[in-house]
């Protein structure tokens, strides 16, 4: 019971800190912390979606950054056309339209690539998910009209018609945008927690531990895994949708496989013991990155050493960390 209470306290503390610290910093005149926290919260959403695959279903997808990229371009491209003309059916500043695009594009991409990747196991699965995300990377690089390698500026944030006018909900305002991201994070955490403890989640957990037995009990895990893959892809896409709005900029760099590696790193850092693990991991990652990159140009070095250390000396390695999720 003690550990349950400690965990509840920890989770609550994380949520409260995320809600108070950036505003405290804003009050103290350090406005850039709001940016750091916005990035943190968006990456926490992405890491949470990946944890549904990695921690709950035991599927080591190494191409999750692809969904961030797709979600981001689902904002960038319609805004580009709305600003410079062309492709009338696509062009729009409407945030709801961007969201519909994000969900359908990411859902479809996850469905197709998942259907192929999930036919394989282990190292094949890792490499294939990696390859498919690299495919998106090269695809985005090849789109000369949208800046190719250099990416694309997003001139305005998505407009949420109705909300903006009726409630003065202007997401160009940084703190309102932060609250929006925070709200999305809460919703995502709630969804992931529900899924994890549902009938569906138990099938995923069982198939992660012993696929042979699951099949011998009359359940083919393929469909359930594919469903999880699609949900995780869509949530990853929503993170990308937010990221494009946050940075006013999208580029193929968001999809590089090292980005997928960083998302995994966050989950490893935060541990898989609760749904807040990815949030804590994203926080550690972003804050470390911020601090280290201010100290030294070579901040990737301590990052690499830390990753190596966690894997080599974290009890039982990564999987050991992931396995210690039982009592949630």
């Amino acid at each position, binding site marked *: 019971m003690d550990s349950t209470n400690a965990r509840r306290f920890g989770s609550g503390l994380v949520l409260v800190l995320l809600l108070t610290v950036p505003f405290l910093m804003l009050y103290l005149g350090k406005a850039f912390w709001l940016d750091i926290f916005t990035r943190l919260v968006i990456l926490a959403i992405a890491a949470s979606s990946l944890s549904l695959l990695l921690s709950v279903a035991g599927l080591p997808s190494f191409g999750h950054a692809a969904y961030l990229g797709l979600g981001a371009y689902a904002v960038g491209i319609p805004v580009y056309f709305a600003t410079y003309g062309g492709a009338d059916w696509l062009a729009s500043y409407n945030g709801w339209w961007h969201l519909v695009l994000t969900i359908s594009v990411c859902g479809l991409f996850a469905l197709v690539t998942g259907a192929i990747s999930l036919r394989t196991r282990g190292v094949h699965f890792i490499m294939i998910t990696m390859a498919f995300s690299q495919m998106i990377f090269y695809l985005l690089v090849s789109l000369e009209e949208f800046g190719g390698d250099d990416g694309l500026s997003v001139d305005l944030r998505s407009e949420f018609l109705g909300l903006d006018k009726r409630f003065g909900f202007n997401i160009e305002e940084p703190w309102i945008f932060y609250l929006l991201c925070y709200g999305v994070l809460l919703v995502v955490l709630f969804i992931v927690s529900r899924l994890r*403890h*549902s*009938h569906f*989640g*138990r099938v995923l957990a069982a198939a992660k531990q012993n696929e042979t037995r699951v*099949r*011998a009990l009359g359940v083919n895990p393929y469909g*359930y895994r594919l469903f999880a893959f699609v949900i995780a892809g869509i949530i990853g896409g929503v993170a990308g949708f937010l990221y494009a709005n946050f940075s006013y900029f999208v580029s193929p760099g968001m999809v590089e496989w090292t980005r997928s590696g960083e998302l995994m790193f966050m989950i490893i850092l935060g541990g898989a013991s609760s749904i807040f693990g990815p949030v804590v991991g994203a926080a550690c990652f972003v804050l470390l990155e911020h601090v280290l990159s201010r100290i030294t140009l070579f901040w990737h070095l301590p990052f690499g050493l830390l990753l190596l250390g966690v894997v080599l000396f974290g009890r039982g390695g990564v999987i050991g960390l992931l*396995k210690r999720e039982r009592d949630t």
Partner: protein
Amino acid sequence: MSVLRTEQLTKRFGGVTATDSVSLSLSEHRVHALIGPNGAGKTTLIAQLSGELAPDSGQVFLGDKNITKLNEPARVRAGLCRTFQISSLFHQFSVRENVAFSVQAESGHSYRFWSKVANNKTLNTRADNLLETLGLLDKANVTATSLSHGEQRQLEIAMALASKPSVLMLDEPMAGMGAEESSRLIELLKTLKSETTLLLVEHDMDAVFALADDLSVLVNGCLIASGVAAEVRTRPDVIDAYLGVSA
């Protein structure tokens, strides 16, 4: 009438014929024991019946339905279930969760995303009933790994029973059990006959003779004898090929 039947089931691995034109027939509500020396092809036969391995040639029928082309999960849903020679459990689940998941697997699809499965009364009650039958109810809340070997074997059977099989294949259920645990399991398996049909692969001859109504003998992938247990065990070729060596 036969509930499970194979016709000319053949499986080769390279040059080795693991099962050679095996035609086996199980009658309803009886215990059918399958015996044979190590390497005779018993486990390969079970694997082909369960759908884990595809036969090179031959057919499998469950009742009058040809299930040769069905995959493993589909066969289980059709009523053909198995246990494993080496206990195959969900090690991070509690004992109750192991059985509750097995019940969940039997009760239709699991595309249910919202309600908490741990609080599902239907699943937990049925799980607890099964655990009670197997005498594991007092261990319901511990993890599967912390059970003794014998208890794990019992959990294995509880999980298979949750699937409500019309035919249950038991791959060496007594393996590694003490004498007392074995005799308790024998009593339990006797009571199961009224609900299901059992195919029993077992090395423990006392258990086989205590339980088996019918007996088949597999040697080098060939079925050398199959029939009512009392008759088969007295046949001279069977005694030569197998029983004589073992006894």
